Every structure is written in structure tokens, then in C-alpha cells.
């Protein structure tokens, strides 16, 4: 593999920024945000340089690596801290640094009134560095370091305003739920090491041809657990909604565009494992399908604009996971949806931030309305993202989502029909709840609280939104023109027979069905929210379904009843056991010694004669004993 010495700068630049900003402290308050933005942008520059280098090489030599240092060297187990940049990682590198830089720029304005802005930018840079390490690591162990790094950055940023106890709790919740997924990843690494003897991507890929199916399935399932944790997929999805406690740029960057897609990256990077383990692959598909409906249902009932978008993120990542689980046919489409989603969802989150900025941090959509007139740029950029996510041609989401739905239908048999219909239903619900967000926020009647003076955001905020909006318009078209992205990514997925499976439906039919589904969703939403009065307070006499959806489909109640309460019981039981058995034993020894001392001290009278008598009795007893024994 070709070596490139400049790969490390991708990670080193933002890491340097985070270090400087955190160590310099208040001294850096004046210029810290500018340095962080500049370093993020220069990392993006290095990414572009790498892309141009990559384009100038022939297809088979496009992947480059760089060995940083020898990390673990024990017997036959050698792990180098090494980086790998191939066609798959470059997509992520450009997404992370590109969207990341835009969000840095946005945050300069958005966070300008926060006295801890420097710390915020330090964490953002830390996140960029960790996320780049995640996608650039050339082994599962290197990936794991980045994986934990983004978890840390996410935790720090969700709880950025940790003076509010609810926000601090939200960050803790995200961290704890992510730990479950991280455990899956570490198990996967351990199983890979125990059965395959290696943890590097290339080594595992080579070993996967000969490894036992059971081992590969175990690794695959554990990787899926890791992905569900990081990507907020069923059943570890509950943290994402609360993660919206973080500042909105964080929600845009970490909890919409990049970090939550790490699970998709992990599965697609491990394509050789899932290709060889159909059971694990089937589980991936099931998780994706469940989550895409789960998130969509939650999205229909949320009045908090950020939580509605978070539910939508969950659902869209469900699509990606679904695509990633469909095997070689779906990998490229999952990545494509990931990239387009990165654009339109980040754009919409920034739009939501812009709306909140103009509405005194109000997040309740029932208190918005008619903002189109007051925030035209936000309306247009948000609107373009909206058209992209519901899948209206020719916007980005149409291409990527359509391809996933089509691939799902082509999965074959009952499975194909089930998955395809699920994806189609998801598309309809997506159209419904996104239209609801759009209508409630921008086009319906005013339902503001008093003293609201909505105004357009400054240029530093709307410029990133505009650029992301352009991305959400064009990327879908660009990626699919001549199958550009699919051909680009193909070398990463190895050799696969050109399987011409039976097409259940012609592509045009699938597109038609998807458009009809979208139209139905949009129509219902417009009827319900645009053409009729909307309460400015959420009505309480609603159907059981709405009530359940408002409570996130009871995910928290379920977790609390099934895991938290029994867990608390178990720990209190263990504490009691510890107190009575372990502490009891220790205290018992002490008490025995004390009691024995209390009894024995009575023999210590201080009278020399009693000691002499005792010695005499002892001697007599000894002699008597010897006499008895020897007789």
C-alpha cells in the first residue's frame, strides 16, 4: 500500500487546537474560536489535498496508509497505530471536516454570548480529531480509540450547559447507553483476536475467508451491538432524544451528521464479516427496519423541534443500517444516504438553531408559526433540507432513500417485500412529520408567546446553512450520475459476483410508489396542521398512540422497568450482601478478638503469685499429659 506522511495532520491539527484551547484557558478566550475554526478548515484542506492525490492515482492504488508508531508488540500479537485512507474513509473525512468547519463557523455566532465559548470550541476540535481517528484507524483497536474519543466529546458537549441538572443527566444517559455499545465493540475485538489472531481490517478480512461461521457471526453481532449504541438504533436508541440538551451546533454535527453515523461506518467497514455471516446481516436489517419506523413514529408526536429532528435522525440512520444490512447491493447506497443526510440534516439542525436564536431559545413548535416572513433565509435553507429528507426529486434524499427502498424490495422473497414496505411506510411517515415541522414552524398562523421578536440570523449563521442547503440539493444528483459514488466505493467492498438478482419492481415503479407515499404523508400533515387550527399547548385528550409516541414509545419506561429498577434492586441487594457477609466477616473477626481479649485479660491480674500458680498448673498439666500419652 502506498504510504502518505500527511495523513496524520488530518487528526493532529484539530487535536492541537483542542489542546491549545484547553491548556491556554481564559487567555485564549479572545481568539480561541478563530484558531479552532482555522484548524478545522485546514484539516478539511488536507482532506481535499488527499482527495486530489487519490484521484490522480489508478483505482487499485488509491488507498494510502501511514504507520505512526508500533503500539502493542506482544509475542505474535502486533498492533501498529496506523492510519488508512481509502475511498470509504475519504468520504467520511470530507464530511466530518467539511460539515465540521461549517458548524464551527456557525457556532462563532451562535455561541457568541456564551462565556464558555472557548471551551465549546475546544470540545468541537476534540470531537473532530476523535472522529477522524475513528474513520482513519487501520485496525479495530485504532478505531476503538476514536470510538471512545467521540463518546467523550459527545458526553462533554451534551452536558455543555451542565449547570442545568436535566442536561447533566442527559449527558450521563448518553454516556451510559453508549457504554453498552462500546462493550459490544470491545467484545468484538476480543473475539476477533481470540479466533482470528488479528484485529487489523486487512488481517480480519483475510482471516474471514477461512474462519468459522460461528466466530464471524459472534463478531458481527457484537459489532451490531456497538453500532446500535453509537448510532442510537433499537434497542439502544433512548439517549438520542435527550442528547438534544446540548447546544444546537452540537446536535447538528455530532448527533445528526457524523458521530451517530459511526455505527453505519463500522458495519460497512466490516462488510467482509457480515458478508460471511448471514445471521448477523439479517439482524442488522431487522434493527434498521425497526428503528426507521420507531424513530418515525416518535417524530410524529414531538413538539420540541430538536427532538422531532432527533427522532428523524434515528429513523434516517435506520435507513442507513437497513441499507448496510442488505449486503453488497446496499453498502454504497447506505453511504450515499449517510452523506446526503449529513448535509440536509445538519442544515436543518442549524436552521432549527437559527429559529431558536430568533425566538429566545423557544423550542416548542406549537409556539412558532408564520416565521417564513421573518426568517426568509432560514425558511429557504430549511425548506431545501426538508424537500431533501422527504425525498422529492431532484433533491438529495430522493436519490439516496429511493435506492435503499429499491434495494430493500430486491432483497428477495418475503424478506424483500417486508423490508421494502417498511421502508416505504417509513418514507410516508417521514414526509408527514417533516411537513408537520415545516408547517408548524414556518407557514401556519402565529402562536408566539408575548414579547417575541423573530429576526433573521447573522451571516455567520446563515452562510453555513446556505452551503449545506446547496449540498442537500445537489449531492444526490452528483453521487448517482453514472453511479459515481457506487463505482468510487466498489474497490473497498472487495470482489463480489455481479449478481443480477430478480428485480421485484422496476426502479421507476419503486420511485413512483415512494412519491405516492410521500405525497400522502405531506397531504395528511397539511390537512392537519396548515388547514386547521393548531393549539399552542399540546392537547391532552389524544389517542393512546399519540400519547405513547410522545413518551418515545415508552422506551424510557421500558428501560426503567426492565433494566434500571431491577439493576437498582440488584445493587442494593449486593450492597446488603456486602455489608452483612463481607463486612460482617471482617467485623466478626474484630469482635471475636475483642471478646476473647475481654475474657483473657481477667487472667492478667498483676499478682506475681497468680502467675506463678498458673505456671505451676501449666507445668503439672504438661507433665500429666506426657504421662498419660506415654503410658
Amino acid at each position, binding site marked *: 500500500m502506498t504510504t502518505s506522511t500527511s495523513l496524520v495532520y488530518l487528526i493532529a491539527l484539530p487535536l492541537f487546537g483542542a489542546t491549545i484551547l484547553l491548556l491556554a484557558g481564559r487567555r485564549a478566550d479572545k481568539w480561541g474560536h478563530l484558531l479552532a475554526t482555522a484548524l478545522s478548515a485546514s484539516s478539511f484542506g488536507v482532506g481535499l489535498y488527499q482527495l486530489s492525490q487519490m484521484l490522480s492515482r489508478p483505482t487499485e492504488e488509491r488507498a494510502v496508509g501511514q504507520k505512526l508508531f508500533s503500539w502493542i508488540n506482544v509475542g505474535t500479537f502486533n498492533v501498529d497505530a496506523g492510519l488508512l485512507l481509502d475511498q470509504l474513509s475519504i468520504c467520511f473525512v470530507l464530511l466530518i471536516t467539511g460539515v465540521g468547519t461549517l458548524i464551527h463557523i456557525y457556532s462563532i455566532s451562535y455561541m457568541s454570548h456564551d462565556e464558555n465559548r472557548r471551551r465549546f470550541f475546544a470540545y468541537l476540535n476534540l470531537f473532530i480529531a476523535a472522529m477522524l481517528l475513528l474513520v482513519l484507524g487501520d485496525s479495530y483497536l485504532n478505531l476503538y480509540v476514536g470510538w471512545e474519543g467521540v463518546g467523550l466529546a459527545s458526553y462533554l458537549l451534551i452536558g455543555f450547559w451542565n449547570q442545568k441538572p436535566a442536561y447533566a443527566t442527559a449527558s450521563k444517559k448518553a454516556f451510559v447507553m453508549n457504554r453498552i455499545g462500546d462493550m459490544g465493540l470491545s467484545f468484538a475485538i476480543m473475539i476477533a483476536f481470540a479466533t482470528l489472531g488479528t484485529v487489523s481490517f486487512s488481517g480480519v478480512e483475510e482471516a474471514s475467508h477461512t474462519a468459522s461461521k460461528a466466530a464471524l457471526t459472534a463478531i458481527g453481532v457484537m459489532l451490531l451491538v456497538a453500532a446500535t449504541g453509537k448510532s442510537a438504533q433499537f434497542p439502544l436508541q433512548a439517549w438520542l432524544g435527550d442528547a438534544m440538551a446540548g447546544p444546537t451546533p452540537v446536535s447538528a454535527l455530532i448527533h445528526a451528521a457524523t458521530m451517530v453515523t459511526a455505527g453505519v461506518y463500522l458495519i460497512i467497514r466490516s462488510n467482509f464479516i457480515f458478508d460471511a455471516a448471514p445471521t448477523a446481516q439479517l439482524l442488522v436489517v431487522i434493527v434498521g427496519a425497526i428503528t426507521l419506523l420507531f424513530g418515525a413514529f416518535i417524530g410524529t408526536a414531538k413538539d420540541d423541534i430538536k427532538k422531532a429532528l432527533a427522532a428523524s435522525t434515528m429513523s434516517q440512520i435506520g435507513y442507513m443500517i437497513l441499507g448496510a444490512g442488505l449486503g453488497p447491493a446496499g453498502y454504497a447506497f447506505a453511504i450515499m444516504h449517510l452523506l446526503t443526510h449529513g448535509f440536509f440534516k445538519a442544515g436543518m439542525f442549524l436552521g432549527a438553531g437559527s429559529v431558536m436564536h430568533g425566538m429566545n431559545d423557544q423550542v416548542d413548535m406549537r409556539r412558532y408559526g408564520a416565521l417564513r416572513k421573518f426568517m426568509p433565509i432560514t425558511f429557504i435553507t430549511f425548506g431545501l433540507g426538508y424537500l431533501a429528507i422527504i425525498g422529492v426529486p431532484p433533491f438529495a434524499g430522493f436519490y439516496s432513500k429511493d435506492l435503499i427502498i429499491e434495494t430493500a424490495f430486491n432483497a428477495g422473497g418475503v424478506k424483500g417485500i417486508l423490508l421494502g414496505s417498511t421502508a416505504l411506510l417509513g418514507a410516508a411517515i417521514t414526509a408527514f412529520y417533516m411537513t408537520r415541522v415545516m408547517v408548524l414552524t414556518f407557514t401556519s398562523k402565529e402562536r408566539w408567546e408575548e414579547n417575541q421578536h423573530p429576526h433573521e440570523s447573522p451571516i455567520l449563521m446563515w452562510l453555513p446553512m446556505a452551503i449545506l442547503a446547496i449540498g442537500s440539493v445537489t449531492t444526490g444528483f452528483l453521487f448517482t450520475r453514472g453511479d459515481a459514488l457506487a463505482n468510487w466505493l466498489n474497490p473497498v467492498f472487495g470482489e463480489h459476483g455481479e449478481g443480477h438478482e430478480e428485480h421485484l419492481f422496476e426502479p421507476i415503479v419503486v420511485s413512483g410508489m415512494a412519491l405516492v407515499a410521500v405525497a400522502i404523508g405531506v397531504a395528511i400533515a397539511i390537512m392537519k396542521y396548515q388547514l386547521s387550527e393548531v393549539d399552542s399547548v399540546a392537547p391532552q385528550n389524544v389517542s393512546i398512540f399519540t400519547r405513547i409516541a410522545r413518551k418515545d414509545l415508552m422506551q424510557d419506561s421500558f428501560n426503567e422497568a426492565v433494566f434500571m429498577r431491577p439493576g437498582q434492586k440488584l445493587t442494593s441487594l449486593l450492597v446488603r450482601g456486602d455489608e452483612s457477609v463481607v463486612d460482617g466477616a471482617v467485623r466478626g473477626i474484630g469482635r471475636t478478638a475483642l471478646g476473647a481479649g475481654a475474657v483473657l485479660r481477667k487472667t*492478667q*491480674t*498483676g*499478682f*506475681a*503469685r497468680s502467675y*506463678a*500458680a498458673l505456671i*505451676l498448673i501449666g507445668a503439672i498439666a504438661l507433665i500429666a499429659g506426657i504421662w498419660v500419652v506415654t503410658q
Partner: protein
Amino acid sequence: MNPYNYLYVSAILFTIGAVGVVVRRNAIVVFMCVELMLNAANLSFVTFSRINGTLDGQVVAFFTMVVAACEVVVGLAIIVTIYRSRRSASIDDASLLKR
């Protein structure tokens, strides 16, 4: 004369000494009783030496006498010191170590 008779005498002397140590309070008397026990042991050593026809026991008897002499020097010194400070030679009075 039957040498075992010496052993009986030795046993009687030892018993008198032991009982004296336990029942008497006067430090000087207790001290004398200890000497009595030592000498009873000496008598046994010499007797066994005679019975067995070796000199080992007699040698040990000399050691015992030397040790007893040393003990007398130290012990009497302690008793005199205690008597000076407490005006009493009763060993039951000197029971302060308990506290």
C-alpha cells in the same frame, strides 16, 4: 543406700518450694522458696548423675548454682529497691503492671 531416696527428698523439697511461692506474700520468703526449688532440681541432677554413672548432671548442677547466685544478686536488689520505695516487701502490693 538407695539413690532413689534422694529423688524423693528432691521432690519433697520442690513441692515445699512451689507451695511456698504460691502461698506466701513476703518477697524474701518467696525468694527463698525459689532457691529451694532450684536446689531441689540440683539434687535431682546430682542424683541422676550418680545413678547413670556420668558427670553430666553434676556439671549442670554447677551451672544452676551460678545462675542461682546471679539471680539472688538481681532479685535481692529489686526487692530492696521495692522495699525502699513502698515500705513493704509484699509481692501482692507490687501489682501495678495490670494498669
